[in-house]
């Protein structure tokens, strides 16, 4: 169990800068998810904590101790990767025993057996113990990799997209299992993913990483409802937040080139400073609703039926926006509809910088 801190970390590989001025604080026992697109620097961050890379600048602290001079072996972290994390040629049992047998912390044989059996029971892989790893399915392999991490009771678990290579059903099942496991162990987890659903459903805290910088850190609720900028707004959520250019005029949102108006209730925040200034209005699809007397007319461009709900793409002029509506809503493509939004849920972003006015203020 440990508290992880990254202070002002930069890392470059030759001319390529992977991370710039990264600060990260992961509390003891926290499930922290690092979310970002491919190439955002997630894996590099993980490798820096594991001790597989050295930062070009900045410091890594584990429980308040600067670990710059510690090798990977001494940091006592466990790593679960998307693939290749099991040793070929070894059986499942040998794989699970391997982390318990290095010279620096070799355990007595009875203890090794006990821990391996306990981990196997936790992950329900007891029947696989004597199997060679090349005869496992993808899900079984990932279970064994997780087992290899938990046998050791490390100070922190580092997981690099461990579920990405699995099919959807299995991914969902393991997501729940992993979250339960973390709560049961009370361990510190750093989980790296590009999948925002994983981030939202598993994380106690989520850090959104883009181009080697942390854009926003917060609970999934904060990230979702109060994105720091338009990048986070459009990256998190499926479908993403609608972003529409406009201005505030006399307390109403006026969409500029589109020419429609919607009520705005941001009251206190919509001060004189924001009046008339170019803005981006962000609204989640579930906060857009259809109503016969609503202020704006649109045409239905596309309908996606998701069972419990439908996701409509509405067309106004040559811009589209998404609305999540109950499944029973009966609409046809090209049908004219009227819509409005929930004015309390609107997030304002500065047009130039893309930063949310709530965060800027």
């Amino acid at each position: 169990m440990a508290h992880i801190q990254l202070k002002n970390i930069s890392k470059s590989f030759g001319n390529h800068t992977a991370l710039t001025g990264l600060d990260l604080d992961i509390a003891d026992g926290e499930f922290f998810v690092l979310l970002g697109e491919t190439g955002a620097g997630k894996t590099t961050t993980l490798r820096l904590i594991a001790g597989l890379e050295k930062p070009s600048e900045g410091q890594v602290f584990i429980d308040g101790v600067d670990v710059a001079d510690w090798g990977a072996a001494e940091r006592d972290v466990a790593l679960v990767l998307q693939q290749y994390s099991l040793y070929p040629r070894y059986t499942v049992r040998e794989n699970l025993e391997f982390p318990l047998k290095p010279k620096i912390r070799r355990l007595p044989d009875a203890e090794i057996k006990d821990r391996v059996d306990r981990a196997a029971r936790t992950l329900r892989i007891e029947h696989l113990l004597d199997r060679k790893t090349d005869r496992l399915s993808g899900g079984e392999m990932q279970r064994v990799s997780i087992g290899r991490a938990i046998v050791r009771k490390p100070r922190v678990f580092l997981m690099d997209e461990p579920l990405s290579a699995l099919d959807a059903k299995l991914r969902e099942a393991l997501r729940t299992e992993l979250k339960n496991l973390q709560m049961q162990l009370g361990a510190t987890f750093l989980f790296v993913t590009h999948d925002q659903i994983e981030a939202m459903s598993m994380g106690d805290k989520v850090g959104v990483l883009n181009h080697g910088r942390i854009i926003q850190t917060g609970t999934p609720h904060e990230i979702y409802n109060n994105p720091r900028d338009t990048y986070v707004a459009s990256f998190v959520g499926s479908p993403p937040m609608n972003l529409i250019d406009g201005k505030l005029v006399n307390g109403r949102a006026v969409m500029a080139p589109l020419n429609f108006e919607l009520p705005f209730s941001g009251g206190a925040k919509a001060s004189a400073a924001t009046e008339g200034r170019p803005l981006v209005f962000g609204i989640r699809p579930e906060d857009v609703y259809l109503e016969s007397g609503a202020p704006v007319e649109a045409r239905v461009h596309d309908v996606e039926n998701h069972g419990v709900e439908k996701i409509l793409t509405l067309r106004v002029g040559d811009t589209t926006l998404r609305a999540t509506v109950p499944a029973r809503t009966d609409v046809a493509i090209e049908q004219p509809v009227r819509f409005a939004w929930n004015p309390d849920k609107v997030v304002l972003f500065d047009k130039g910088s893309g930063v949310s006015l709530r965060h800027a203020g």
Partner: protein
Amino acid sequence: MAAVRTSSEIGFNRIAIVAVLVVTIIFLAPIYWIASTAFKPRNLATTIPPTVVFQPEISPFVKLFAKRSQMRNPASPEEYAAAPWWERVVFDGGEKIVRDGKGQVQWSGYPSRFLNSLIVAITSTVLAVGMGTFTAYGFSRFKVKGEADLLFFILSTRMLPPVVVAIPMFLMYRAVGLNDTHVGLIILYTAFNLSFSVWLMKGFMDEIPKEYEEAALVDGYTRMEAFFRIVLPEAATGIAATAVFCFITAWNEYAFALIMTSRRAQTAPPFIPSQVGSGLPDWSVIAAGTFLFLLPVAIFTFLLRNHLLRGMSFGAIRK
């Protein structure tokens, strides 16, 4: 899937089988030639057309291992009757086995040359593959300054025919006293094979995901332990393939062995044809020497055949 085959597929299969047979025969014919000649009596070895059906004889091997000398007169009947069977076959050829003062049979030069070949080839193979594996691992896993240039430099040692440097090498070896020594030949063969070994092993090392070792590092193992416990077993296929190539090169090397060695450290390749010179060439004995000389490579390759088949594909089958 049920095997449903069209007639054209069956036809293609037949052609493929015939092609494989033809190629195999072409490659096996010289080996058959050597093997059959090794068991022929001397007078049948050079007949035209070649003798295919004959009574196999062991006499060429007896002559190969025993030190012999020409007899002016054929052996007397008493002498012949008293001699063991292996001495009689030598008498039949008009020769006798040389004995020392105590009547002890003298060995020919062949066994010691054969042993020299084994010592030099095995040692140089172990050295070249061992050093090559470590070097390749270094190039594959660490950032080495000027890596491309260094690798090119290593390869460049193979860019001219080795014989070009034979004379200067000979002079240098004579100056430092490495002439006709095992160490001298081992150094030479190791140097020849090292560049090849580095390049081949680099390819195999690159194929091994570095995640394996990193997992071991995180699990508390040192880089060295990770190398021996994880990387080396994974590289076994590549090491086997490289070792076979290095062994064959060292085993078959002729030119340098001829120039650099004369007696003490001489290997089999320059020795076998040197036997042509005494009296009329006895092709059966030469074939017997060559036949035995083929065996170690054949056995070595056979033992490693599973590794080799995978190794030859240069990782193409590995996932």
